[in-house]
């Protein structure tokens, strides 16, 4: 059974389906693996209502968390923690976030920042498994 034998069994439509799927899949890599810039961020804290901020307006936010106030900076479509009353400062190390779907957080201060695009409905849960 050689490769030629195998391919000779393919009907014309089979070959067409194979090539069409292949090109579609190659396109899907480009489509799904590009990162799109986010347009806004949702800042959540246990101390206050979740805040939706636009990434287009440069601004500094002081958010009250579980330990104290965290400073969050928005600049040119990006967002980052610049100070937080936590020990390890991982949130600050994490740096600028700018892509849709990104998430950064200061766990000790219980503040999270989720980046998204417009027209995104808020979900009631992150994932379900059992």
């Amino acid at each position: 059974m050689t490769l030629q034998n195998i391919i000779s069994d393919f009907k014309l439509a089979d070959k067409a389906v194979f090539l069409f799927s292949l090109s579609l899949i190659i396109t899907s890599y480009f489509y799904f693996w590009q990162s799109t810039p986010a347009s806004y961020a949702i800042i959540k804290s246990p101390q206050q209502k979740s805040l939706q901020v636009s990434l287009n307006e440069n601004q500094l936010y002081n958010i009250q968390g579980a330990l104290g106030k965290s400073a969050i900076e928005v600049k040119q479509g990006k967002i980052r923690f610049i100070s937080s009353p936590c020990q390890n400062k991982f949130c600050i190390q994490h740096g600028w976030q700018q892509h849709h779907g990104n998430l950064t957080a200061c766990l000790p201060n219980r503040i999270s920042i989720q980046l998204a695009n417009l027209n995104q409905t808020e979900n009631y849960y992150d994932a379900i498994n059992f």
Partner: protein
Amino acid sequence: MQTTDIQITTNHQDRLIAGFAALAISIHLLESALPSPIPGIKPGLANLVTLYVLLRHGWRLALNVSLLRVLAGSLLLGSFLSPTFSLSLAGAIASLIILGLTWHLPGKPFGPVGLSILAALAHMTAQIVTAYFLFIPHTALFGLLPLLLTAALISGTLGGILVNRIIKRRDELTQHE
């Protein structure tokens, strides 16, 4: 007290469905024991039975065999009505719909390979979409789609070639009888 005997009369079709479903369920169980390199990727050998039944006995039988496989397979694995089951069912229904549509096209343009590829891709896409709407509502999930579709194309193509061989071999054997 009167006893009644319940008698179920089975016809040839019923017996075919039962036999093929049993085969598909066995393969399904064996396959679930195989370790998978990446979650979500497996060869889909149980679906080869569906494809074989479709080609030899038509779509209605394939439908019965495939749905029975999903149901009985989940009962045996203990995943009935769990997320795994929903994904399995969604995949099976999507591929059955695609197979039904393409199989009934006039002139039957598709051979086993084309049908197998289409079914595999439909299976995978339906599973991802179901997972997105029911379990992981995050668009990052679609980042998996290209990889999973690549795997589906490979397993679909190989599966189609295998079924083609099986049917040819079976035809040869029947001629010798």
